């Protein structure tokens, strides 16, 4: 609009002119109105779809749509990122033992074995662990047979033996080592002298000829 524009219209006059103005009645208008009403009612009867009008303004709908979109996208992104795993890693880090502290934990193993002995003897795995050193002890012991008998015959004795073995774990380990270290070398086997077995010389080739005293079976 130009700056030189001056509004010269008398709005009050225009209002008076237009407010009271009327059109001449058209008789055909009523017929047209009736026709439109009839067609509208017919179309309404045919279409049973209910008209739902929500009086929600644009200023509400548009931000709501944006919020939903942003929320959906952020939810998608969160689904890709797993925060729980990170937490577990952080928790596990202090639990990792230092290399210097590892050795005492291995020394402390005999204490664990005590707990194993306290368990009922019916468990096969525990008995095996206990028996293995006892077998080693048999190898070194000058009286092996007696020990074996005690182990097999009475379970309480076995328990006692296990307890004694558990109390001295270091010795058992040494005995094991000794067993492993003494292998029989194949050269010694070659050097070992073979004893010659004396052959028995038969007096006669036919043995049946000498046994004449035996009664013969009578055939019917």
């Amino acid at each position, binding site marked *: 609009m130009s700056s030189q524009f001056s509004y010269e*219209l008398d709005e009050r006059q225009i209002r008076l002119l237009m407010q009271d103005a009327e*059109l001449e009645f058209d008789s055909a208008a009523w017929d047209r109105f009736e026709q439109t009403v009839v067609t509208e009612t017919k179309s309404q009867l045919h279409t049973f779809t209910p008209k739902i009008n929500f009086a929600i303004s644009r200023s509400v709908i548009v931000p709501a749509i944006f919020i939903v979109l942003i929320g959906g996208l952020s939810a998608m992104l969160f689904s890709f990122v797993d925060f729980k795993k990170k937490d577990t890693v952080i928790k596990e880090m202090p639990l990792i033992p230092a290399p210097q502290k590892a050795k005492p934990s291995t020394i402390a193993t005999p204490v664990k074995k005590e707990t194993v002995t306290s368990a009922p003897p019916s468990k096969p795995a525990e008995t095996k662990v206990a028996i293995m050193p006892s077998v080693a002890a048999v190898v070194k012991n000058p009286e092996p047979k007696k020990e074996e008998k005690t182990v097999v015959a009475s379970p309480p004795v076995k328990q006692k033996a296990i307890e004694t073995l558990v109390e001295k774990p270091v010795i058992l380990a040494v005995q094991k080592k000794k067993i492993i270290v003494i292998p029989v070398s194949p050269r010694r086997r070659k050097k070992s002298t073979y004893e010659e077995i004396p052959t028995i010389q038969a007096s006669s080739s036919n043995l049946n000829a000498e046994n004449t005293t035996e009664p013969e079976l009578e055939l019917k």
Partner: protein
Amino acid sequence: MSESELISACLKNDQTAKKQFFELFYSKLAYISLRYSKSKSQSSQIILNGFGHVFNHLNAYKSQKKYTLEEFVKTEFIFFTVKHIKSIRNEYYVASTVRAVENKETTYDLFLDNQLIDLKNISEDVVLKSIQQLVPSQRLVFNLHVIDNYTLESMSELLETSVQTIKSNLEKARFNLQKSIEKNLKMEKDEQPI
């Protein structure tokens, strides 16, 4: 038939009462529709649908005591007309932003032919024609505010736009209306036989 009897008969779907009601308010409502629409064909469509809207909302008249029957019918009809014009979106929104450029060189210099145009004595038809030539958004605003005495706030609620937009549309409408009135008056004078 009294006013209340007429309304109750219309609510009972009495065709004679409806015809009477139609005849009673047709001339006024037809002119309102002409003011708000761009052409006669559009106004005739608005009249038919607008009367249907008024008949459907006659129930609301009984429950209120704010308006007289004429005022109630007029406000309901204007409400429907505004919604109808706004519903023609390609016309309402595009025309308010884009204006076709004509090749013809138009001059609105009032003193070009040494002719003085008196804007205070304008005929009804010229004003109506000039209003119809306005862009839909400007036409609505001018009709509502200047002729039908709507406040800016009530217009912003009805048109679902801000008061600032209405104000700017009103300013444009005033400028364009004056120019189109000048143009139409000039054309009228030229067409008159000597």
